[in-house]
């Protein structure tokens, strides 16, 4: 059973607007969440993370929000740029350093 879900396989956004990518999880033991970005023919690269003691983490144009009660996190990219076009994976882990569980990814297209 999938423990991390990304229900939107794709998203298209105009350049300069906000991109919001969503992720839901089912395991209440998860305490660390990450977003990875993947270009075609490359491996995923780490983008931003958040631990369960926070509800927001910001890094430049990227902000991750965590709603523990809803078991939901989201990644906001603002302003979106064409170079942000990629597949974004949400991942979660329980207990520091243990296994990571990944979602199926959301393909973001930023239209110039």
């Amino acid at each position, binding site marked *: 059973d999938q423990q991390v879900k990304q229900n939107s396989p794709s998203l298209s956004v105009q350049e300069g607007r906000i991109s919001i990518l969503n992720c839901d999880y089912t395991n209440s033991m998860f305490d660390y969440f*990450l977003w990875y970005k993947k270009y075609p*023919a490359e491996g*995923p690269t*780490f983008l931003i993370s958040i631990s369960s003691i926070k509800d927001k983490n910001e890094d430049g144009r990227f902000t991750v929000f965590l709603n523990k009660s809803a078991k939901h996190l989201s990644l906001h990219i603002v302003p979106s740029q064409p170079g942000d076009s990629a597949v974004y*994976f949400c991942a979660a882990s329980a207990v520091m350093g*243990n*296994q990571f*569980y990944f979602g199926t990814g959301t393909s973001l297209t930023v239209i110039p």
Partner: protein
Amino acid sequence: EADIYQTPRYLVIGTGKKITLECSQTMGHDKMYWYQQDPGMELHLIHYSYGVNSTEKGDLSSESTVSRIRTEHFPLTLESARPSHTSQYLCASSPFFRANVLTFGAGSRLTVL
């Protein structure tokens, strides 16, 4: 500037062949992982290692085997490849004390005919 290298990047082979996917990292990371990903699907952990001579199976059952004789090297072997093994295989590593960030290689895309 990749610090984790996977070879081959692409491989097309016939059924029954033995193959080894290589993975090497230059970061001195203790932990290494193999993930398998099919298009549109999540990454599934198939093997991981916490250090030399340590190997464990992941959540997804796999007929592949791994070894960890050196810290920097974590090869994956399929003794007899089948079409069901067609997939992308991603190697990753992380340091022991900051293990929540994985660094991935570029992946090996395997096609078994």
